[in-house]
C-alpha cells in the first residue's frame, strides 16, 4: 500500500518535528539548563577536573582493639550502590555532622559488631600514591562516632 502524496507530506513533517523535538529535548535542554537529571542529562560522569588528592567521605567500624574495618555500601546506606552510599555520607555530614547516619549504621550492625564504634569520617589520600604503595592518609577527620549496642538501639 503506497501512501498518497498528502499523507507522505504530513508524515515527512511529522518526522522532521520528531527529529527536531528529540534534539531539542534530549540534546539542548539539559545543556542549556546545565543540569544532570534523569532521563535527561548532561552526562557529566568522569568529566570533573579531578586531582590526585580528593576527600573521601565514608563510615568505618573501629573495634575494641583499635582495628579499623571498612563497611560495605549496603552497611552504610542500606543500598548496594557505592555512589549512593558515598553521597549519603557526604549529605549526612553536611546535614548534622553525620549523627543520624551514624545511629542508623549502628542499628544495622547491631547483630555483628556489638561493642564496636562506628565513625563517620572524611579521609584525604593521594590516590596515585595509594596505588604506588604509600597508603598513609594526608588527613583524617572524624565527624562523629557512636557505639554499636547489641540491643539494636
Amino acid at each position, binding site marked *: 500500500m503506497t501512501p498518497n502524496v498528502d499523507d507522505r507530506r504530513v*508524515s515527512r513533517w511529522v518526522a522532521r518535528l520528531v527529529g527536531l523535538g528529540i534534539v531539542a529535548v534530549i540534546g539542548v535542554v539539559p545543556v542549556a539548563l546545565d543540569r544532570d537529571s534523569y532521563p535527561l542529562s548532561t552526562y557529566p560522569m568522569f568529566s570533573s577536573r579531578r586531582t590526585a588528592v580528593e576527600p573521601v567521605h565514608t563510615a568505618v567500624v573501629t573495634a575494641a582493639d583499635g582495628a579499623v574495618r*571498612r563497611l560495605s555500601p549496603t552497611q552504610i546506606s542500606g543500598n548496594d550502590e557505592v555512589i549512593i552510599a558515598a553521597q549519603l555520607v557526604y549529605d549526612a555530614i553536611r546535614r548534622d555532622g553525620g549523627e543520624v547516619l551514624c545511629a542508623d549504621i549502628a542499628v544495622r550492625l547491631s547483630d555483628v559488631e556489638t561493642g564496636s564504634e562506628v565513625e563517620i569520617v572524611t579521609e584525604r589520600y593521594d*590516590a596515585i600514591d595509594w596505588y604506588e604503595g604509600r597508603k598513609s592518609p594526608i588527613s583524617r577527620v572524624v565527624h562523629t562516632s557512636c557505639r554499636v549496642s547489641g540491643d539494636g538501639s
Partner: protein
Amino acid sequence: MIDWMWRTAPATRLATLRILVGTYTVAFMLARSASFWQSADLPAWQTEGVGVLWFLDIPWSPTLVHLLFVGTVALGVLFTAGVGFRVIGPAFALVFLVMSTYRLSFGHVIHTEHLVALHLLAIGFSRSADEWSFDSRRRREVPQDHVRYGIPIRAMILATIITYVLAGIAKVRHGGMDWLVGDVLRNQVAYDNLRKELLGSPHSPLGGWTVRFAWLFPPAAVLTTFVEIGALVALTRSRRARWIWAISAWGFHVVVLALMAISFPYPLSFVAYACLFDVEQGAERVIQAARRRTGRTSDSKSDRLSAATSGGIPPING
C-alpha cells in the same frame, strides 16, 4: 539530511528491538532487584526527587515501591511478548521511567539507565508489536515497510548519538584541555578505585596498577572523547562506519569496566547499539534455523513478504 528521520523500516525490525530492549530491561531489573527493592529503605531525609519525580521530598511507602517493582517487571514481560501493546507499550515505558527515577531520587544520579529509558519510550509509544508478538498472531495481512516503523528507530538512534556526544562535550567543557592531555583521567581512575576501596566496594586492581603509568592516560582520554563525539557517524549510511563506531563504543565500556569496575550494562550487552543495524535479519536467521531444527516449514508472514516496501519512501539504510 533534513529527511534523515523519514525512512521506512520493516515492522520486524522494530519488533526485534522491542524484544531485545524489553528482554534486556526485565533481565536488568531482576539482576538489580536488590537495589530497586532496597530503594524503599533509604532514609527519608535523603529524598531528593529528580526528573519526572522532581516534586518528591518524602519517600513512598515500602509496600508501594515493592509493588511498583513487581508490576514493572510483569509489564516488562508483557511488553516483550507484545501483549495488549497499545496499552502495555506506553504503560511499561512510563512505569519503568517512574521506577528507575525513584531509585535515583536519593541524592545522586547514576547514568546506567538513561538510554534504555529513552529507547523504551520510543518503542513503547510506537507500533512495535505489529510483528512477532502475541497481538499479531491472528493478523492475516503482513505489515509493509513504513515510516511508522522507521521513525521510532531513528528516534532511538538519535537518542543514542546525543547521549554519547553530550558525554564527550561534558568532558571537554568541564575538564578542559587538562582532561585531554593532563592527568585528569588518571586521577579519575585512581580516585574512583580508591573511593570504592574505602567504601568497601569491589574495585579494579587492574585500574590501580595502571595508574602507575601516567603516559597511558592522555592518549586514552583523546580516544575516549573521539569515540563519544564520533557517535555522529551513526548518522551515516555506511554500515561499516556504524559497526566500527559501535564496536569502539562497546570497547570503551569494556575498558571502563576493567579499569574502574563501573558497569554500563546496556551498552555492554550491545543491545544499546542494536537500533543501528538491520537486527531483524539476524532474528529471521535464528527463527529459520530453529524451524529447520524442528522440521517446520518456513511459512511466516515475514517470510512471505520480507522485502515488502511501501514504494517511494527510502528505507532505513543498512
